[in-house]
């Protein structure tokens, strides 16, 4: 009997369905699902789950807002992470993340300890690096991967402006340091106008409602100081990064980037996302585009350059890792790694060699065993 897959996840979540279907298609046993809620309560539940040699996959806890609250509390924050009760009901209010990521970090370490009889499909340290955009940028830079210059953002808007002036940065992305999904992302441009006066423009999905900020499906632009300050302030206070804005090449109707999924060191899925604005996340009105069509203008060498860039990312992490890499192509055709997403594999309907992202991972997991020596190292 082969190994089974133990999954820490949110039961009923779309990701869990996709994974279960992929296992079924591959002729494997259904996953043993341990709910994030139970794991957050006591990670030791994992001690009794599965047999020695079974695989362990830790899925995104993001779909369960009560898990968010628990992780936040574990990390020393308020249950709601400083957000309001409503924010846990409709999920669209922007929530601070510092305490959440501290809680998550603690639980991931505990999971690794509690599940030492299982073979992890990814390293907790890799997950934590990818969840932290500052750590990711430093990690990639240290491994020689082309990624835009990234700094830790100051905690106030005033200090941010001073820093941008000092660094002569005219166009940057300001992003919440932790988490993903396009929430808490700002594209900020500043320069001196003809008359010498300063002008600024902020593009974001956040929308203010009184003192609270909500995520919207629509990307909006702001050019008045009071809105810009009010939108940036809570994200900077919680913890953010400043990343140089490399201009993106475009399709007819908007700029695009690529989501490239790397599984076990190899490109497994790819799609271009054309945004209405520079923020191109698919749930924000962006459309999918065939990668070859997107790259056509840059000649036959364009895609191989993306592949080698993505392989250099994979080489910077554990070889078992699944990494959702966001790649921007600048107008001269040079690819840049913008983000790495630990849970960037939910790409419904996208097929590579007839398999979806989960199918590819299932095949990689059950086809290529983790050598026993690696397990021993980890236990040591």
């Amino acid at each position, binding site marked *: 009997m082969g190994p089974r897959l133990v999954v820490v996840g949110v039961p009923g979540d779309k990701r869990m369905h996709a994974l279960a279907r992929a296992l079924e298609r591959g002729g494997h046993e259904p996953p043993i699902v341990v709910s994030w809620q139970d794991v957050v309560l006591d990670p030791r539940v994992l001690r009794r789950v599965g047999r020695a040699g079974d695989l362990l996959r830790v899925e995104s806890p993001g779909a369960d807002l009560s898990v968010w609250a628990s992780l936040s509390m574990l990390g020393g924050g308020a249950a709601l992470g400083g957000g309001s009760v409503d924010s846990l009901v409709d999920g669209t209010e922007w929530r601070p993340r510092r305490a959440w990521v501290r809680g998550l970090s603690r639980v991931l370490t505990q999971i690794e300890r509690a599940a030492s009889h299982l073979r992890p499909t990814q390293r907790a340290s890799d997950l934590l690096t990818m969840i932290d955009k500052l750590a990711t940028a430093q990690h990639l830079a240290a491994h020689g991967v082309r990624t835009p210059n990234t700094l830790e953002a100051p905690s106030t808007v005033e200090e941010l402006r001073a820093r941008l002036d000092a660094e002569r940065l005219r166009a940057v992305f300001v992003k919440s340091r932790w988490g993903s999904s396009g929430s808490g992302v700002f594209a900020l441009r500043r*320069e001196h106008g003809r008359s010498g006066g300063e002008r600024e423009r902020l593009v974001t999905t956040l929308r203010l409602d009184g003192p609270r900020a909500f995520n919207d499906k629509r990307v909006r632009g702001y050019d008045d100081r009071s809105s810009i300050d009010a939108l940036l302030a809570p994200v900077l206070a919680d913890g953010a990064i400043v990343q140089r804005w490399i201009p993106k090449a*475009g399709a007819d109707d908007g700029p695009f980037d690529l989501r490239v999924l790397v599984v076990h060191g190899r490109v497994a899925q790819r799609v271009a996302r054309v945004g209405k604005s*520079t923020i191109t996340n698919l749930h924000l009105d962006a459309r999918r585009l065939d990668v070859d069509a997107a790259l056509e203008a840059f000649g036959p060498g364009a895609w191989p350059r993306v592949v080698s860039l993505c392989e250099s990312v994979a080489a910077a992490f554990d070889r078992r890792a699944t990494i959702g890499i966001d790649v921007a192509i600048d107008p001269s055709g040079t690819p840049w790694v913008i983000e790495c997403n630990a849970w960037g594999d939910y790409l419904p309907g996208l097929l590579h060699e007839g398999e979806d992202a989960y199918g590819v991972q299932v095949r990689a997991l059950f086809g290529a065993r983790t050598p026993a020596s690696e397990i021993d190292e980890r236990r040591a």
Partner: protein
Amino acid sequence: MADKRRFEMIEGASKKFWEVSVDGAAFTVTFGRIGSAGSTKTTPCASPAAAQAEADKLIKEKTKKGYQEVGGAAPGAPNWRPPEHYGTHQHTRRFMNYAVAGFDPESDGEADDESGRKSYPTLRNLDRQVFRVGLTYDDDEDAFDARLDALLDDPKVGDLRGLLIGNWWGDAGGQPPHNLIAKLIERGASLKSLVGLFVGDVIQEESEISWIEQGDFGRVIAALPSLEVAIVRGGNGLRLEKLAHDTLRSLTVQSGGLPRAAVQDVAKAKLPALRDLTLWLGVENYGGNSEVGDLKPILDGKAFPALEHLGLQNSENADAIAAAVAKSAILSKLKGLDLSMGTLSDEGAEALLAAPATKNLKYLNIRHHYVSPALVTKLKALGIELNAAERKEEEDWGDGEKHRYAEVTE
């Protein structure tokens, strides 16, 4: 039987054709080497409209690659096409059907090492390519003048047919192109083959269109003896004073807000050969403070006797503009009318439908509009080529007003 359109591309030894026809809810393409019968493929679609949309998309892709339409569409009719749309998300790769190459005296003459784009240190292959000068995000801002000077000093500059100007300001934001303007006026006579000029081939990822600081291009255009096509992007500070030219046939001004003075300059211009005029009027918030009345000399048909295509685009006053065009003398002389990218709604569409001359157009573009499906159907029934893609819904921002917006207003 559906109308078949044929496109061809000849590049070196490669001679290819591509044909498309729409028949009901399917479209058929035939492609191959010119002279061969080619291969044929029919693709079923959800509806006739979907088939047409898919075919239109493919035509756009092919023409972008360099395919050119051959043969007439309707029998007897000259193969008139509206001027090309230069969008704000991609650098221009083909300009007047020439490939665009970069000019950089520092480059090694081959493809940039990291990209497939070609950049050359000297002008070359001028029978098939035009050149672009501009800064990228990691260039020093002083590099622009050096590149421009090197291009203007190139021994082959007299054979250059097209010149595109990208970003000239680099990290020094807010710089009008004073030096560029002075240089082009000074050296205009030596640019004796220059047919096309595009100033501001800058994408939205590089700059807000309303942040591009412009200058006065009236005398620049006048100084270029062979110019036929002029495009300027960016309305801030733009003027076209004393614009007069005997051969200019196509003028496009793209902006997020076109200042009234620039609109008045255009209306006063002396361009006897002008066939296409495109103005992105923009919104007041970004400096677009012209009024419909400022367009009067153009709409009267007296300003440009040869005008065949008029684009009054990207406007937040699209209904008022449509109403003025519908009543104008110019409408009956036009082949193409482009009111795309704006806030056109039923009011403007009704005005167009009420004007008898509308049905004599060959082409009407209202892409990015707020017109109801019922009226779009009526426009379609006029039997002219219509682009009514990207219907928008008015937005409710909870302030008791319905909001419509023009496309390129950031």
